[in-house]
């Protein structure tokens, strides 16, 4: 079997190498080629060592998905892979979907697992708000994307042969780029994330969540309305399918009802605690531990008890 890895930046090749290792442990050895856009050939060389395979490189600082997908299509035609695999970033999903669309092949977005069963490859996806697993058997060739930051990065080997390719022009023209406002703490890396939702009545009240996060060495994240509608927190604190995905040891959802768009982004948390005054809130279905209480009454008491424990 032959796999073509597609990355919009070279760092992603190391994650894709982690997936490859997992695939080989299940389906036996695979032949590999890779394609990445990179700011320089040196950067590409560095990361091509993780996949230790022939790496096509488009040297560019900024690329649009249609440029990458067109370049990738040429490589697909040259290499004839059975699988085209990318990383499920916004750009990665789009590039791979374009390749799949142009080639007329199936694609499975953000697969959570791959399984070899009776000589066929099965791909697992989380669907229905992350509460269900769909096991898919595509006709090959097929394409897929893997979740970002899921696979352990293996030790690098020798850099592969580099083949420089030119990027075609894009149908899009750039007008401007604005950086998103940043909150300082990275919720994607925090071991504890306190999630705040519409149960909080005003911005000042988020201080309770901040205090809790400080005590537990974590960060505060939020559901959609808190960032998008009320702007109480910057957008990089927004947890959800349009925001960030997190995988902390503890996710504590406070005053969050538990819409699938939010919860599907926290499913990889080791422990989920939910505090909500509505005992029927969907968030409890996703929680290990639920507290049915008004957060305004519960949090001060919980913070006090936690202080006693941490102090003692």
């Amino acid at each position, binding site marked *: 079997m032959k796999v073509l890895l597609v990355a919009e930046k070279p760092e992603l090749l190391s994650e894709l190498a982690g997936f490859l290792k997992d695939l080989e442990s299940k389906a036996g050895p695979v032949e590999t080629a890779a394609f990445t856009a990179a700011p320089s050939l040196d950067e590409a060389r560095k990361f091509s060592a993780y996949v230790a395979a022939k790496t096509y490189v488009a040297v560019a600082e900024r690329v649009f998905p249609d440029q990458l997908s067109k370049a990738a299509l040429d490589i697909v035609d040259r290499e004839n892979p059975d699988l085209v695999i990318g990383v499920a970033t916004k750009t990665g999903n789009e590039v791979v979907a374009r390749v799949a669309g142009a080639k007329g092949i199936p694609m499975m977005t953000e697969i959570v697992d791959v399984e070899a069963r009776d000589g066929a490859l099965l791909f697992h996806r989380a669907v229905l*708000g992350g509460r*269900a697993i769909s096991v898919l058997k595509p006709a090959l060739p097929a394409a897929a994307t893997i979740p970002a930051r899921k696979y352990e990065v293996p030790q690098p080997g020798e850099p592969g042969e580099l083949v420089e390719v030119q990027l075609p022009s894009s149908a*899009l*023209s750039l007008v401007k*780029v604005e950086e998103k406002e940043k909150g300082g703490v990275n919720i994607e890396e925090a071991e504890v994330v306190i999630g705040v939702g519409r149960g909080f009545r005003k911005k000042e009240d988020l201080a309770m969540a901040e205090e809790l996060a400080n005590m537990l060495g974590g960060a505060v994240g939020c559901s959609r309305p808190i960032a998008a509608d009320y702007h109480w927190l910057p957008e990089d604190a927004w947890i959800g399918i349009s925001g960030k995905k997190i995988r902390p040891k503890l996710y504590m959802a406070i005053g969050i009802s538990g819409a699938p768009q939010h919860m599907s982004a926290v499913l990889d948390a080791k422990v989920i605690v939910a505090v909500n005054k509505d005992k029927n809130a969907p968030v409890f279905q996703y*929680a290990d531990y639920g507290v049915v209480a008004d957060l305004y009454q519960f949090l001060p008491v919980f913070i006090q008890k936690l202080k006693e424990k941490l102090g003692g």
Partner: protein
Amino acid sequence: MNVAVFVKASLDPNMLRVDSSGRILVEDIPLAISEYDRNAVEEAVRLKEKHGGKVVALSALTWGPIQKRVREAEQVLREALAMGADEAYLLVDEALIPGNPYTTAGALAALAQKVGEFDLYLTGEGSMDTLSFQMAARLGEALGVPAVSYARALEVSEGKARVTRDLEEHLETVEVNLPAVVSVTGEINKPRLPTLLQIRRAFAKPLDKLSLADVSYTPPSAAVEVEELRLLAVSRKNIIVEGTSLEEIASKLVDLLVKEGIVK
């Protein structure tokens, strides 16, 4: 300006039905308009209000059984009509069930080409049931027009669209010549709630059902087989921490977090 808007009759993830073995009872889960497709309809109607032209809502039934589901899919299109779409078309064909982005995109592109000429094709960035984020890219390929994804702002003038794309770390504003496909995020607008009168009037608007033969589309013979659809095995503990007072509940929760190794 004529806008085609693609809407999905999605399984409602808040209404899961499961049997005792954990198998998802797809047939018992109600269909509803996919959340971000509602934003796409809203954006299409706003463009019509500003620039004139018409809005055509397009959908394909991708969940069976057909007999039972057609009415639900029609209901989803009626909702788009009530919001301000002018006409609607629904593809109903056994070959599209269960759907996957590959066959659905090909069929929807064929439907769009069959029913009109459009300056803009809008859809949600992903559907709320399967969240594959593939439609805009695949529709662009199938229709042979540029696709621009993740729009949180959209303006149209003089044959061009200016789109602000919502990416992980930044907002990127681009221009593209029309016709083009644009996928929208939930942040682009607040979808209107149709009035009772609008809902009633929607029943007078045209809604046609077509088969794949009607749009001359032959789906690929081998695409994707769904082997299983089951509840996520790694289920949560689902323990409600109870007590006679908030103090007791808080203490218990602290102890649980100690036991989990989170509070040290």
